[in-house]
């Protein structure tokens, strides 16, 4: 009945939102990229049945008509990998947003395309290969200084082993120039800076390793209490208004990873803009270089097409694996995986799949598992140590952590930073609840901490116990009033308050406080615990809590996070705390005698 699709060509038979059905697709492969309609909108085959295929389209499908042509590209959705990724900003399917803007202005129009990497840009290349050399996959063919902070390795793609037939000399080359030719058992392979890799397929490694080093974030509540290791996975759930995004931004800014990939997945446009505006101005605390020189941003805001949102997570993780393979520690931040899961749900509903929990597809847990499993510490094909750490934000509807995305994410991550509405309401940031959060990497990161501050583990556990008891007595105080508690119990409310304001709360906007080096964290905790132990002993000896809280050092401890620049000042403060408490005993003793 419809003449437009004659001649064996593929054509559209149905359009329903981002899901398009096409006929004449007998040769199509699952996850193959197709171009749909007159405008050539980018889509991906997600289901096949005989001659017809179901396609999810990454762009707005308005005015797409049955009968319009569909063209197969023969390749799965693949990324361009090569120098030029760092500092760039992409949408979910790796369209470079600055280039799109230069071409099409403020609005993202349908069917607009641009090369993900600039093919005309020339890079300084230093070869590491000589003709006749025996080479294996993952080995560096040469080096490109991508940014002052990133030395980019041009690697032999996975599966390329053989003998170097020819290798280019040092010089400037574009990403499409041939830099070396390798004779492999299956024929000669040209090596270029540009490699393509399918987004949904993990890049191979030689070996997976145990996580052994902490990923330092400079955030006290995280590093000290709920640390994540390099190569670890963390989940950060929080209802709206709990400071999820600010916390994540802090991690993005201050984590000591070599490469940072931030995936803005279905989040606010203005928030992405904030990141885009802020990052070029921010300096890495360790090198003093702009943070953008080690960062890739992926921005697929909530109003951009939902199918592209689904892919954005894979786009980010594939880029992370690529840099990991060069030997970098990469940290991936996904804000928010709930929006990604919702994209899955939306697509599944359009495909009329049978829903499981709360309308999410039954494949949700396995999809989440696949994603988080792409994180980890590894030995790369080239024999280097690299890691991908993943921090996934979760936005549980109604702040209810029993919903499927939070629950399944918990299964596949080993760190749980639980954001708390009550803390956020009191503007206590980061609003990570210290009693409901956990980290399973303590064993792994302990040696590194102990080297920095002997006795760290004991100190940390002591502080945790104090915070637990504080909560216990707070519950009681809520019923009977704090004044009815004896000093030995009110002590915990007092020290708990010092811990909250003087340690756990950390300002993201205060220059002196936004990044706290690990040694300072440990020393600061040491000071507070010294105050706790001293106060506990003195109360046992009959001192009044009111006298202790009136000591000048108490105020100093509260201000120490900003007032003390480093461990030296904190050590001095710690001895003052001891002295003043001891002095208290003296005067107390005299009064008694």
């Amino acid at each position, binding site marked *: 009945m419809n003449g437009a699709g004659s001649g064996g060509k593929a054509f559209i038979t149905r359009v*329903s939102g981002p899901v398009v059905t096409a006929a004449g697709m007998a040769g199509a492969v699952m996850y193959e990229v197709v171009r749909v309609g007159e405008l050539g909108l980018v889509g991906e085959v997600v289901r096949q049945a005989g001659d017809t295929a179901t396609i999810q389209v990454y762009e707005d499908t308005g005015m797409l008509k049955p009968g319009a042509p569909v063209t197969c590209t023969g390749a799965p959705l693949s990324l361009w990998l090569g120098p030029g990724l760092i500092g760039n900003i992409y949408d979910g399917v790796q369209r470079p*947003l600055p280039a799109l803007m230069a071409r099409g202005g403020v609005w993202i129009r349908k069917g607009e395309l641009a090369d993900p990497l600039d093919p005309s840009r020339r890079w300084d290349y230093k070869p590491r290969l000589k003709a006749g050399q025996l080479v294996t996959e993952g080995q560096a063919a040469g080096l490109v200084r991508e940014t002052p902070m990133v030395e980019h390795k041009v690697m032999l793609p996975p599966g390329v082993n053989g003998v170097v037939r020819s290798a280019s000399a040092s010089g400037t080359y574009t990403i499409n120039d041939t830099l070396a030719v390798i004779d492999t058992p299956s024929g000669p392979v040209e090596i270029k800076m540009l490699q393509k890799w399918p987004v949904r397929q993990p890049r191979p490694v030689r070996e997976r390793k145990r996580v052994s080093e902490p990923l330092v974030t400079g955030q006290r509540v995280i590093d000290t209490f709920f640390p994540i290791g390099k190569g670890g996975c963390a989940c950060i759930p929080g*209802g709206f208004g709990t400071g999820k995004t600010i916390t994540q931004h802090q991690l993005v800014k201050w984590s000591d990873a070599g490469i940072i990939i931030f995936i803005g997945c279905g989040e606010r446009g*203005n928030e992405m803009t904030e990141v885009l505006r802020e990052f070029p101005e921010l300096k890495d605390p360790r090198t003093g270089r702009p943070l953008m020189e080690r960062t890739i941003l992926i921005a697929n805001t909530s109003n951009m097409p939902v199918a592209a949102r689904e892919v954005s997570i894979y786009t980010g993780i594939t880029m992370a694996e690529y840099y990991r393979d060069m030997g970098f520690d990469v940290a991936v931040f996904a804000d928010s995986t709930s929006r990604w899961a*919702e994209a899955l749900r939306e697509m599944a*509903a359009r495909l009329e799949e049978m829903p499981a929990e709360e309308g999410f597809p039954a494949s949700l847990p396995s999809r989440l598992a696949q994603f988080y499993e792409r994180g980890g510490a590894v030995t790369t094909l080239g024999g280097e140590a690299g890691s991908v750490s993943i921090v996934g934000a979760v936005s549980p*509807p*109604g702040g209810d952590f029993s919903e499927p995305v939070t629950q399944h994410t918990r299964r596949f991550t080993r760190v749980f930073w639980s954001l708390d509405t009550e803390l956020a309401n009191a503007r206590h940031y980061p609003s990570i609840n210290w009693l409901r959060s956990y980290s399973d990497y303590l064993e792994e990161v302990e040696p590194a901490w102990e080297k920095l501050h002997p006795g760290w583990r004991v100190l940390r556990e002591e502080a945790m116990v104090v915070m637990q008891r504080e909560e216990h007595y707070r519950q009681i105080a*809520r019923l009977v009033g*704090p004044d009815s508690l004896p000093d030995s119990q009110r002590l915990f409310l007092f020290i708990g308050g010092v811990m909250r304001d003087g340690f756990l709360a950390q300002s993201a906007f205060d220059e002196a406080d936004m990044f706290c080096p690990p040694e300072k964290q440990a020393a600061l905790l040491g000071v507070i615990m010294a105050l706790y132990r001293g106060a506990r002993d003195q109360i046992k000896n009959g001192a009044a809590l009111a006298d202790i809280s009136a000591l000048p050092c108490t105020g100093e401890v509260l201000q120490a996070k900003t007032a003390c620049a480093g461990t030296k000042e904190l050590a001095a403060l710690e001895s003052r705390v001891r002295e003043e408490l001891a002095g208290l005993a003296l005067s107390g003793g005299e009064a008694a005698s």
Partner: protein
Amino acid sequence: MTAKDKGLEYVGASRIEGPLVVIDRVRDAGYDELVEIKDSSGRLRLGRVLDISSERAVVQVLEGTDGLSGSTLRARFLGESLKLPVSKGMLGRVFDGLGRPADGGPLPLSGDRRDVNGAPINPVARRYPREFIQTGISAIDGMNAMVRGQKLPIFSGNGLPHDRVCAQLVRQARLPGEKADFSIVFAAMGVKRDVADYFMRDLSRSGALGRVAMFLSLADAPSVERLLTPRAALTLAEHLAFDCGQHVLVVLTDMTNYCESLREVGTARGEIPGRKGYPGYLYSDLASIYERAGRVEGSPGSITQTAILTMPSDDISHPVPDLTGYITEGQIVLDRELFQRGVYPPIAGLPSLSRLMKDGVGKGYTREDHPALASQLFACYAYVKRVRALADIIGEEELGAGDKVYLKFGEAFERRFLSQGEREDRPIGTTLDLGWEMLSLLPRSELHRVNSALLDEHYGKALSGKGG
């Protein structure tokens, strides 16, 4: 869009169900295409294509399906999606929910017709909003400050004075030191005529009607029409802001009604429902509305959005406020308890939040002490809530002396800082001084979030300086 099919008319529908009409064997029609449907009496209604295949088109009738007959209706596919003619001349006019003149005036003169669905703004092309808007309402300016280009909704409940608060906000909003210069685009979805009249009266009283465009899809209009109303309004707003360089304030009321219409259509299509029967794509759909706010490179204009939504049974975790809160940059929450105690505006202290405040206040924007003051007020008020909960159990008399001071602070904060007249336009300086006056009721040693330099400058000063 080929010319030959223009005018091709399809007679009869194979199915009519709720707002949906299914027409068989449609040729050359596109997804989201506009459809004109004529019933036996000759009345025309608009619809759009929700699902199109070679066999059938599912058309959502925007103006109701009552009186349609499957055998006699005639449908014509118009070859394009819904477009709105836009021009500056639309300010001062009233339109229906689909953007057609409803004030008896002529069609706006315009060469520009825009797709009401808009296009996403390239995140790279956005400018970060940071110009403080003074609303003259202390609870907003002092603690949840709004900036130009922000989307800050009002979460309310039935019977709460959200309309009055919103009207006051619209009336008073301006940059400090500048004259009121916002153009206002007002979209009413499923609200009663009284509400629309109230806004119109209020705006005309303040002489603002000439810079207001109203899109009204009132409670008696077909509910599906509402799905287009905010989009039409925002299409005009985008034109005014980004083509004409105006600062536009968009008021959307009531988004809960909008979401209910969306649910209605979803149910009629037999979609798999998500939470509380709302469709699974509610988040994306709301985002396609709320995200049409902000500022962009190359244009001096801005779109600031205030959506009003009523939380069913005051439940902030209901899908509509919940998903809205995830998209908008904060929320102003109205509180029933405050309202019952006669506090106007009853803006809840703790759950209200402005995410963009941090970059629009402080030194160089409002006043250096603003951020610390706001943070301290939040912390103290949060403590007040705890003390009150305790007092409920053990009785006020049993409270420690320190806690009793907080009760006094809490009372003053609600009565004097939060409360103000409906016509009272407080400059930001007054709001901040008032905030310090409140804090000065507490012992200085309780104020941990303000550094000593600021305390020296402001603590206890406001008391003597201003006469209240």
